[in-house]
């Protein structure tokens, strides 16, 4: 222990050796322990880290896509590398509609998970795109502005994060002119 550089000897030149109070030292514990990058909830999105990188590549280029099975025709979401219906790995990316309807939604006003506290309040919804139903944040609107069935459209967000990657994700916004779009102009 004595050669541990984190140990500070603050007992001066007089360590207890006579059976009195034991020697006391101070050791440093890091003030802050960085959590792994993965705790920001987003994957590393490139080919080096995920086999569904094409989903993220497509999103980066402006297209929301998912996988479709070349053998049984099933459309999946989330995208896969193996079809859960028939276990084929002959999958291809197919575009999803960029507009859909609000199937269900709420507003997170508290009890947000780690890293999302600064976003509160925010709307999270289930959006029905037709072939699939996915969860997504809805931007530019509050809970009171929205109704089941409202039309929403895709927004791609660039992540300003601690990685050296250009990561992206998808959100939705009320379609201008549709119900709930009043708030869209309020930012």
């Amino acid at each position, binding site marked *: 222990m004595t050669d541990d550089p984190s140990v500070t000897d603050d007992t001066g030149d007089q360590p207890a050796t006579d059976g009195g109070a034991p020697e006391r030292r101070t050791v440093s514990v890091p003030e802050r322990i960085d959590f792994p990058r993965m705790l920001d909830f987003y994957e590393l999105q490139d080919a080096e880290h995920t086999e569904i990188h094409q989903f993220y590549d497509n999103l980066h280029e402006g297209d929301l896509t998912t996988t479709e099975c070349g053998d049984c025709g099933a459309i999946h979401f989330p995208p896969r590398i193996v079809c*859960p219906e028939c276990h084929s790995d002959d999958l291809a990316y197919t575009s999803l509609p960029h507009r859909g309807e609000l199937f269900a939604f709420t507003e997170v006003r*508290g009890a947000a998970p*780690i890293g999302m506290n600064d976003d509160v309040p925010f709307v*999270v919804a289930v959006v029905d795109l037709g072939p699939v139903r996915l*969860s997504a944040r809805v931007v530019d609107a509050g809970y009171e502005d929205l109704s089941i069935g409202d039309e929403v459209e895709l927004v791609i967000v660039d992540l300003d994060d601690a990685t050296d990657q250009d990561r992206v994700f998808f959100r939705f916004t009320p379609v201008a002119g549709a119900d709930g779009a009043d708030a869209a102009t309020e930012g």
Partner: protein
Amino acid sequence: MSRTAAIVGGANTRWGKREATWKDLVQEAGKATFEDVDGLDVSDVEGLFVGAVQPERFANQSHVAPLAAELLGVNVTEMIARTELACASGQAALRYAWLAIAAGQLDVALVVGVEKMNLGKEYMPEMQSTMTNVVDREFDGVNGLNGPSFFTLLAQRHMHEFGTTQEQLAQVASKNKSHAANTDFAQFQQSCSVDDVLESYPIAPPLHLFDCSGITDGASGLLLVSEEKAEELGGPATYVAGSGQSCMASNSVNNLPSFTGWPQATQASRTAYEQAGIEDPVEDLDVAEIHDCFSISEIIEYEDLGWVEKGEGGSFIEEGRSELDGDIAVNPRGGLLGCGHPLGATGVSQAIEVHQQLHGQVESARQVPDDPSTGLIHNLSGSGSVHSVMILERDLE
């Protein structure tokens, strides 16, 4: 099954915001469990099953079953396992123990469920991440879906499709929280009116804060033994008469079979009813501890456990059919809404409550009347993707 198993006793630690570590909670529950059972001691235990969801995150500790074995002095000779099935880890542990006993592998098992969740207010977002991780983290959790924000979507759809009302949701919360006023280990021991629920903060509308279960530290333990061993002991015993589980290849939002129901609960309960010889659950069940993580959950469960037609769950509470003196006394302990929800412990505690109800061992204010003999426990997990149902009977058929 060649033979079944019986709960012969169990105990809960005090639940709530505890000034105690994960290890402290395990020791409290273990000591109290052995004190509850005459004729068995730790040297009789051959198997240990520990329900625990996220000790890695909350207690910075993994490989927790051997740790519990050491803390309680259990020399495991047959089987040791930790079960992780999110909020249903407790019943999963009990079910593993039951199967091991039924298979003839062992005669005496200790089942412990435990969770340490309160890390201090400043770390509440870390705690909330538990629920964010049990759905598909990459595509659903990432959007901020966790307990309240996911289950409220079911509430909204149920209200939209079936006309279930905010008041009916609040009636569930009021009933269960008021039951917990008679439960000495519960986190919330205060009566709570329907108006109290409606006036609480709409934390993820339509659900209000009091529609949600708590963030809870706690542990529960029980001893499960073979039917031969139960007869030898001669004390109060509650037999596992049926057990079912279902997951329909779904966990993420796009793949859930429904947003207003849980066909998995229907399937799991059918299996359990069939094994137990139950043809009419409303007629045959006297008491049930079902997974009311949120008020909407209990309403959906009335329906999908086969007690009332789909969409009519709201009327089941409104008509008082789930009160202590109703058709089925539901959550006399106070449920998750009243007792709190230390994830791994909940399923174990539900089983203890039914055992104690069937043997007249609970405080008289929450004792189900008319000599109950048949009970049900139900645990769901994650996005409702898995449902676990067990039938418990006082008398061996």
